[in-house]
């Protein structure tokens, strides 16, 4: 096939896709009678769409598509001519053959037109339907779907992209030859976006350097004025460069966005059809409402979301909603409610699919998992509700006892989760028995960034999304009300719960903030809290990516963002911040607190694993200096410290502990990679209660040593 004709077919394919989408929407509205006074316009729109497909198909030589479109025009002729209502059989036929048109068009665009079967029988079938006397009755027969008025107002209509006209003009050829129309591969766009991300990191580094130079300049109070002025000039220049970089990045992102984005409605709108089809198959009733369809998102993301959303919506109807009879018996409306909401915050997309159905039957999930051998009895008995909910994502899991067209094969939610993970996203589920289920997809886009307030807690920086930050204030002790279990900040005629962010993150024990300590007022979903932090570093514009699954069972993090040197900073989830409220309090049954001091992250992980298995709540720090600071504010039953650390080693740390009156009796175990007699002697001389080589740090041995040391100190006290 000549290349130019192939190109034309590719363009026509997009045109047909849009037209079929519009036509299907019209069919659904006409079938349900929701078009109201606009029924005539909907019929006209449907007719125009079919006419466009017919004309352009004929022009480009895809006669099968043209013939099908013509036959469909005949089918709807009575609607135009006599004002008849669209019956269910005609609606089925229209929707089915719109699908056939799409499939045939895709085959032609891919050069597989010769493989297609003769379209004659399909045309004959449509002619037969068109000539059958149809009863003039409303289409809805008790099973079906409808689109809400709210969804109508919130869904953006996508205009046809090409200039193909039904009158068979050659404007299609002209459009293909138009030199302004380029084809760019997705890989090139991805490469461009990656370069923009590198630019963003370069800008971040430039900003950090400007801040460093400004800070150094301020500290040079005693230097000669001309030196300070020269440095100040350099700092101003650096800031200017950083600002210009930022401007360039914004411009680039804006242009890329205009190339790459489409309204998310292009994949949401067809879901009305999906709901309709599943309802007809299952005998259920459902109404789909869409919020946020007008948002424009990266088209790769939109296309990739199509499959998962179809599956989740089908799952919601098939598994989530009860039958109309069951719903009436429960006092619910016979028609189930599905809500699909899309929201964009910075560079994070949130897609929520919620139903008001029966919720996940956890006992049934447990029994099904046992029956399929996915878990054993012991594991089943020990699982929490949250863990049981996660079983629905296991491959092969299905509570259906028989296979239907919709479900039962156990190939479903695991694939959806895998597809979402492939997009670097996260899929979560929440469910309440008899009330409904909510799936939440969180996905990053490569475009756009999030403004984040950077704060420090202990050794680590964290980000708080700026849209959730109401204010940053300084602690005034006179504004605090310290109760037995809570601290309150009394501020401007309101009382806010005050929490220590480091304690919420289990970095250290809760502290009453001292005078002047920064407090970040965070507001989300009508809840407001005051968070005490060690330092407010400033605001940054960052690209936030979700964390890998399984990293943190608590929904504490929105994701992580790359900082100037490539290191990651965790960005906190505002919903978690306002609701955390002792949800991360030290576990019930934890006997004591242990402090691990080691500059090695991996060693800290191993010590933590051992001590937590022994029932301790573990705080870990990376330096002796940080440990000494932490010991001023928190009480610990035991300290396990590495000997080899930069700056202050474990021996100096031990001597310092023994020098201070508040820590002189604190049980201390020193550990070292060097475990000879000399090292042991040095450790004990420095004031350690025990010494272990790292080779000896097997779980049982360390815990035994810890118990022994604590007991000895208590006995001596």
């Amino acid at each position: 096939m000549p290349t130019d004709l192939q190109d034309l077919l590719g363009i026509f394919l997009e045109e047909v896709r849009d037209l079929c989408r519009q036509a299907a929407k019209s069919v659904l509205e006409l079938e349900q009678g929701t078009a109201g006074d606009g029924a005539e316009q909907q019929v006209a729109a449907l007719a125009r769409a079919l006419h466009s497909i017919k004309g352009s198909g004929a022009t480009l030589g895809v006669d099968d598509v043209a013939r099908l479109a013509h036959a469909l025009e005949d089918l709807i002729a009575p609607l135009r001519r006599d004002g008849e209502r669209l019956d269910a059989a005609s609606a089925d036929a229209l929707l089915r053959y719109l699908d056939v048109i799409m499939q045939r068009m895709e085959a032609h665009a891919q050069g597989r037109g010769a493989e297609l079967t003769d379209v004659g029988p399909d045309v004959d079938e449509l002619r037969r339907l068109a000539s059958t006397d149809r009863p003039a009755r409303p289409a809805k027969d008790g099973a079906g779907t409808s689109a809400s008025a709210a969804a109508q107002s919130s869904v953006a209509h996508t205009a046809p992209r090409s200039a193909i006209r039904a009158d068979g003009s050659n404007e299609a050829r002209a459009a293909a030859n138009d030199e302004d129309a380029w084809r760019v591969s997705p890989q090139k766009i991805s490469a461009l976006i990656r370069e923009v991300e590198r630019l963003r990191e370069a800008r971040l580094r430039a900003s950090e350097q400007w801040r460093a130079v400004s800070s150094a300049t301020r500290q040079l109070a005693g230097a000669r004025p001309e030196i300070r002025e020269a440095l100040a000039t350099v700092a101003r220049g650096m800031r200017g460069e950083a600002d210009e970089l930022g401007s360039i990045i914004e411009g680039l992102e804006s242009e890329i966005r205009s190339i790459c984005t489409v309204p998310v409605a292009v994949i949401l709108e067809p879901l009305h059809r999906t709901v309709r089809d599943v309802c007809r198959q299952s005998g259920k009733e459902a109404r789909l409402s869409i919020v946020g369809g007008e948002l424009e998102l990266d088209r790769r993301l939109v296309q990739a979301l199509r499959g998962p959303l179809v599956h989740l919506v089908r799952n919601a109807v098939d598994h989530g909603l009860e039958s109309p009879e069951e719903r009436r018996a429960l006092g619910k409306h016979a028609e189930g409610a599905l809500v699909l909401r899309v929201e964009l915050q910075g560079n994070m997309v949130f897609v929520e699919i919620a139903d008001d159905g029966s919720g996940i039957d956890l006992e049934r999930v447990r029994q099904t998992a046992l029956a399929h051998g996915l878990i054993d009895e012991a594991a089943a008995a020990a699982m929490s509700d949250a863990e049981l909910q996660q079983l629905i994502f296991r491959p092969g899991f299905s509570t259906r006892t028989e296979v239907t067209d919709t479900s039962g094969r156990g190939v479903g939610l695991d694939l959806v989760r895998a597809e979402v993970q492939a997009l670097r996203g996260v899929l979560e589920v929440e469910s309440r028995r008899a009330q409904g289920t909510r799936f939440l997809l969180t996905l990053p886009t490569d475009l756009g960034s999030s403004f984040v307030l950077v704060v420090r807690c202990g050794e680590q920086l964290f980000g708080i999304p700026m849209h959730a930050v109401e204010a940053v204030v300084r602690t005034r002790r006179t504004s605090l009300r310290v109760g037995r279990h809570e601290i309150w900040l009394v501020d401007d005629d309101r009382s806010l719960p005050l929490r220590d962010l480091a304690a919420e993150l289990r970095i250290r024990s809760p502290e009453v903030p001292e005078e002047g300590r920064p407090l970040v007022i965070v507001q989300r979903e009508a809840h407001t809290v005051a968070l005490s932090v060690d330092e407010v570093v400033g605001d940054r514009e960052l690209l936030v990516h979700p964390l890998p699954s399984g990293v943190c069972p608590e929904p504490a993090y929105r994701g992580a963002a790359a900082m100037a040197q490539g290191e990651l900073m965790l960005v906190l989830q505002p919903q978690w911040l306002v609701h955390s409220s002792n949800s991360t309090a030290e576990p019930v049954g934890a006997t004591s607190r242990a402090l691990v001091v080691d500059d090695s992250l991996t060693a800290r992980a191993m010590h933590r694993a051992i001590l937590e298995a022994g029932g301790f709540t573990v705080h870990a720090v990376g330096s002796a200096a940080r440990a000494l600071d932490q010991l001023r504010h928190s009480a610990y039953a035991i300290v396990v410290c590495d000997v080899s650390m930069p700056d202050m080693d474990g021996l100096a740390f031990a001597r310092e502990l023994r020098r201070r009156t508040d820590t002189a009796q604190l049980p201390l175990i020193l550990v070292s990679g060097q475990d000879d007699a000399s090292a042991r002697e040095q450790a004990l001389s420095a004031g350690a209660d025990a010494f272990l080589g790292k080779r000896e740090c097997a779980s049982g041995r360390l815990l035994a040593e810890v118990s022994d040391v604590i007991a000895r100190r208590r006995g001596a006290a």
Partner: protein
Amino acid sequence: MKLRSLSEELADLSPEQRSLLELRARRLATAAAEEKEEALVYFAEFPVGEHAYAVPLEAVRAALPLRLVTPVPLSPPHIVGVLRFQGRIISAVSVEALLGVRGWQQDPAVLLVVDPGFGELTAIDCERIPVAMALPRSAVEAALQGSDAAVVEVMTPDRRQVHLIKLGQLLDRRHRSDRAD
């Protein structure tokens, strides 16, 4: 010396000598056939404490120094932290913390980026950069089939005991359960 053909040489052999030669020939032919069939599977081997562990070499994507890893408060103890790798965020996991700490010689300072087979790369910690080694496929398959555990022991040809890690099974715990093991 006159050169004689093989058939002339064989004709001079006694029945016992002929029988012995035939036996040796059969043995040599069998050994060659066995050698041809003994395929090897390649692993990346690394020490943790006193023990040697190995992961399939085909699953290894990179070996990195342990740096720029961000710890994640509230994460299970086996999660060392998260880091960036080729533009994506991956988790770093402590093998010892997952399997049960049995002591170590030096703090693991190498991260081995692996593909466990469920769509996400993960980094596991090692005390040093792994070395490649080969094991007979038959021995590997026998070890894997003989146990459902995430780690199985296999004897190397030079009589060393190596612990083979089934990456998907070991690391999939975090997908099965949100609690720490």
